[in-house]
């Protein structure tokens, strides 16, 4: 369990992390989501005691990171796959880490095998591809067989096979009852791997919710209608008291409704339809709406925050706040 309590990091005048309080629970994959520069990496560095918080506190099962004896046996992290001396072989890189925490050298061979780097174990790390470097970083994280794992953007720059491998690995680690805390700036990635979601923007906590709740709240459904008799259809829908949004390409969108009543309505008025389909707004959009609000919140602090869960007319993301909230 990782507990953050009012965690704050200020660089000169900029607040990189602003009063974050949340808990990462064991046995699930917790996704840590935010746009680039939201403060995810800074937060993770503070968890590992690499950066000192300006105020607030991070506890790992009640302890500060530097109070943990042999921390690699307790929490394994991949923050930056490039944090390796390129002149050292993969084996020696892992060996020096293992020795520093009293982990037997045999374990180095095991993790090299797990990540599939046994064949290049004696090769210098500077010759590694991005994917191999990422695997080496994950090997280092797994070295101490830790109960808590933390990955910062682990799929960045990986090929599809590598991405699939990491997703499967994270799921299996969580299934073994471990705490898995993984950051990403891609909502779609989180939707596939995370059970719980922590969203930050501009260093602030925007959401701390289960993935299922987030989807239920944010996946707006709407009906898309396309007709050659567009004006007539608009009138008919308007008469029926149905709110319609016109979008580009001649399509109309009806929020929240079902397809059937619209189809029946059109049939009664003998309107030709070329398309009648139920659409699901993507989570990526919901995420962008959410984080766009955080920008707004900082730009005009008098504007009401926390409106992200309300349905927003479909269109370009952030169009709602451009119109003026």
């Amino acid at each position, binding site marked *: 369990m990782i507990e953050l309590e009012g965690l704050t990091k200020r660089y000169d005048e900029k607040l990189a992390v602003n009063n974050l309080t949340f808990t990462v629970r064991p046995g699930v994959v917790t996704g840590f989501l935010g746009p680039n520069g939201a403060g995810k990496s800074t937060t993770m*560095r503070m968890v*590992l*005691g*690499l*950066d*000192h918080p300006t105020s607030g506190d991070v506890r790992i099962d009640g302890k500060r*990171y*530097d109070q*943990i*004896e*042999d*921390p*690699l046996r307790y929490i394994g*992290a991949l*923050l*930056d796959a*490039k*944090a*390796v*001396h*390129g*002149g*050292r*072989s993969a084996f*020696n890189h892992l*060996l*020096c*880490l293992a*020795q*520093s*925490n*009293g982990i037997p050298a045999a374990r180095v061979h095991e993790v090299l095998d797990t990540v599939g780097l046994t064949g290049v174990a004696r090769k210098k790390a500077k010759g590694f591809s991005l994917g191999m470097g990422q695997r080496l970083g994950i090997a*280092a994280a797994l070295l101490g067989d830790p109960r808590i794992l933390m990955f910062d953007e682990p799929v960045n720059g990986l090929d599809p096979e590598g991405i699939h491998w990491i997703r499967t690995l994270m799921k299996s680690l969580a299934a073994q009852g471990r705490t898995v805390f993984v950051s990403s700036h891609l909502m779609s990635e989180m939707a596939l791997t995370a059970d719980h979601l922590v969203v930050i923007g501009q260093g602030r906590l925007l959401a701390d919710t289960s993935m299922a709740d987030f989807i239920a709240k944010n996946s707006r459904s709407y009906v898309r209608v396309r007709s050659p008799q567009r004006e007539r259809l608009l009138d008919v829908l308007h008469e029926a008291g149905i709110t319609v949004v016109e979008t580009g390409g001649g399509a109309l969108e009806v929020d929240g409704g079902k397809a059937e009543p619209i189809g029946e309505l059109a049939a009664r008025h003998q309107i030709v339809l070329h398309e009648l389909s139920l659409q699901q707004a993507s989570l990526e959009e919901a995420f962008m709406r959410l984080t766009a609000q955080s920008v707004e919140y900082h730009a005009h602090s008098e504007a009401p925050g926390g409106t992200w869960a309300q349905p927003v007319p479909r269109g370009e993301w952030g169009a709602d706040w451009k119109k003026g909230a």
Partner: protein
Amino acid sequence: MAMAHVIRSEWTKIRSVASTVWTLSAALVVTVALGMLISALTRREFDSMSPRDRLTLDPTFISFAGMSLGQLAMIVFGVLVVSNEYSTGMIRTSLAAVPRRATFLFGKITVATALALVVGMATSFLAFFLGQAVLGPHGARLGDPGVLRAVVGGGLYMTLIAMFSMGIAAMLRSPMLSLGVLMPFFFLISNILGNVSATKKIGRFLPDQAGSRILQVVPGAADDTPYGPWGGLGIMVLWVAAALIGGYALLKQRDA
């Protein structure tokens, strides 16, 4: 035991990078070879020297002539051992494994110092014996008064130079910046300050000037140095301690 683990780990680190081997072997080869060359030149010129110069001839010190250049390789060793962590980003991995920064830094410095001491002593003894062999009849023997002190002192001097560089590198982090400060300092500034009469009194309290006093067996005729060989080495130790404490203080409060 955390410290024992860190020392094993740092030993793996230091032996698994190429720079360790080439910096330390350069320190040894340059010091010994240049010392032999200067010794050979001295032997050839001996007959044309004034009687005064013959009397104050310090064969031990002559065989250490290569140290002024060889110490630069020791500086590079000391700088790279510490700043490699920063230039490669390895520091974040290292501190995540060993979050207690004193344990991390002093574990690393212990290992690097032990290695520098072994190589420094080997260099000093080799430079002495080969230098004396070249000097032939004008050479000194290890049993002569003050000679063993000077030879052991030579090994200690090389080690302390490496340690001082580690402290500076821990403060400055960047290898280029550290070398850019240390190289001109030891190669130029210290020599200039030590040889211009106006600044000589300050110059001789600089780490290399004070520390290298221990290399001399026969002090020059006009020697008015206010400290002896061990006193000079003591001054150098104070510089080293200051550099290491400064390095630790910055490492402790800085974000990695």
